[in-house]
């Protein structure tokens, strides 16, 4: 118990001492040109302020612009209008401050796991000074012993852990994750959710987590941003006040769940009593 509190204190100190990782999405619109020459409004007037160290989920059905928004934050695409800023600095292109994890781990198949994790440091020319950190992060995601394996020798869950370590070793201010657990089986998935939470508490990094799984969003996040398609926009932002560690079948859980389902027109408003 005392150890637990210690850990929480350390985590809290880390977060306060860091204090960076505030994202501001201001009135962002993104248009794509469709094959017939018309416009697709992928995102319309999106406003969102994300606090430093916050765990936020973008939730919504396929095509509502979650990936588009995440790619704009990553700097892989530019908004048609509006702007995005990280700690008051406007996003203009990719930067290691904003780490990425896709649904597909996209590890480099020609590198061993260790070298994959080290790619960011290598690309930035600081690998020599930070060799031990590579091992540290491999430990952190539970891949010790697989340093010299190649990606094809890893299971989906392990590959995703490696991708996570690869992003984290760069000390990003924000971690952007696009359905990172979407390709995993249900059990590996729940396992990984807890791992991500553990790492998030440990590092205090802001996380923007894209998912179309309502339970996953509620279980993980401080806030859940529910988006709707055609045109992609934010429908509502839910504050998840449930204390951590959370139980997956906490009654409040079901209430938020039915609120979100109702918002997305998948269910009538259910009274929580039905579940109890």
């Amino acid at each position: 118990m005392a150890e637990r509190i210690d850990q929480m204190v350390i985590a809290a100190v880390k977060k306060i001492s860091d204090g960076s990782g505030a994202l501001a999405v201001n009135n962002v619109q993104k248009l794509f040109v469709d094959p017939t020459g018309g416009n697709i409004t992928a995102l319309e007037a999106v406003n969102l302020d994300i606090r430093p160290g916050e765990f936020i989920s973008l939730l919504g059905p396929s095509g509502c612009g979650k990936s588009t928004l995440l790619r704009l934050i990553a700097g892989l695409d530019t908004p048609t209008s509006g702007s995005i800023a990280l700690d008051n600095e406007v996003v203009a292109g990719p930067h290691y401050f904003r780490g990425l994890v896709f649904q597909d781990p996209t590890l480099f198949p020609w590198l061993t796991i260790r070298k994959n994790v080290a790619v960011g440091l290598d690309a930035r020319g600081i690998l020599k000074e930070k060799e031990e950190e590579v091992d540290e992060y491999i430990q952190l995601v539970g891949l010790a012993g697989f340093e010299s394996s190649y990606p094809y020798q890893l299971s989906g869950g392990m590959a995703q852990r490696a991708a996570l370590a690869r992003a984290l070793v760069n000390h990003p201010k924000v971690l952007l994750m696009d359905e990172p657990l979407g390709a995993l089986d249900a059990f590996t998935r729940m396992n990984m959710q807890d791992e991500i939470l553990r790492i998030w508490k440990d590092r205090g990094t802001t996380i923007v987590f894209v998912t179309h799984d309502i339970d996953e969003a509620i279980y993980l996040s401080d806030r859940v941003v529910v988006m709707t398609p055609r045109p992609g926009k934010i429908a509502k932002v839910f504050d998840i006040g449930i204390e951590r560690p959370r139980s997956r079948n906490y009654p409040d859980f079901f209430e938020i769940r039915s609120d979100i389902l109702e918002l997305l027109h998948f269910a009538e408003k259910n009274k929580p009593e039905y579940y109890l």
Partner: protein
Amino acid sequence: MPDTTSVKQTLIAKVNENIVVSNVSFINREISALLPFIFVALLLAEHTLLQNRQPFFQKPYFTWIIEVLVVIFAVAGIGANKFPAFWSKFLEKAPLLAAFAGFLIVWDFVTLKLALLPLPYFPSPAAVTAALINEWETLGISALYSLRLLLIGYGLGVLLGLPTGVLMGWYPRFHYWVNPILRSIGPIPATAWIPLAMVAFPSSFTASIFLLVLACWFPITVMTWSGIANVNKAYYEVARSLGASEFYLITRVALPAAMPSIFVGLFMSMGVAFVTLIVGEMLGVKAGLGWFITWAQGWAEFSKVYAALIVMSVLFSGIITLLFKVRDEVLVWQKGLIKW
């Protein structure tokens, strides 16, 4: 962690796969191990006991070699049956060796013994062996000349083609200007330039190098370019979000990702390089295995032609094997590589 165990299991399965030595022979091991001995002994009997119908006035190198082989294979066969683990390589190849001896029996029989095939075009194995041994010096020097020309031409072709392909794959503007040249010049077999090259260059040696470079440049450029153009764009996105510069993207992401394709280009280039080399030597260069063949043909000494073909086979096969070794080394990360 459930996924750790599953990976360990696949690793164990891999190891087991390697331990189970593939068993090609379908007869039992004791006989299989003695097959090379039996067939070489048969060859010796056939070669020495039957009457010659073709003239043969060379030293009996062929007989000597068979005699030595009879002894070697007898020892190997017995040894393999006593210590199968130690002789596993021999056991695996035993049926092949026996089959080759069988082939020599048939060849010797229809040429030297029955004279069924017309001379001088189809000499006996004994005549080819004699040519190989009598001409070993000329053949060796010719092989070295061929090797020199091949390595210079191929090396320069690759050195030129690799950057051309990388630039084409990376910079659309470079692709725009170079693509027409690649498309129009590339498909012309390099040997078609021989008449021009022979007058345009000061020596047949430099002309041949030019032809080889041209021949190798095309496949390596095309395969490098397409390899780079087909790299998963997500690799670049991930690398850029990790802080990679453009130089890093080209050299550390695009190039290694394109490596499998580049190796296809390296193999294709080697194939056309062999053709261009030999044709160039047959038509202009006054050295090399190609020249040796035309020269021997001029004197109607076909046993020497066959000897040169054997040397060529060993040389070229060796080069291809080496290239495969390099590829296996570079592409260890690829699942399910085909072994040469």
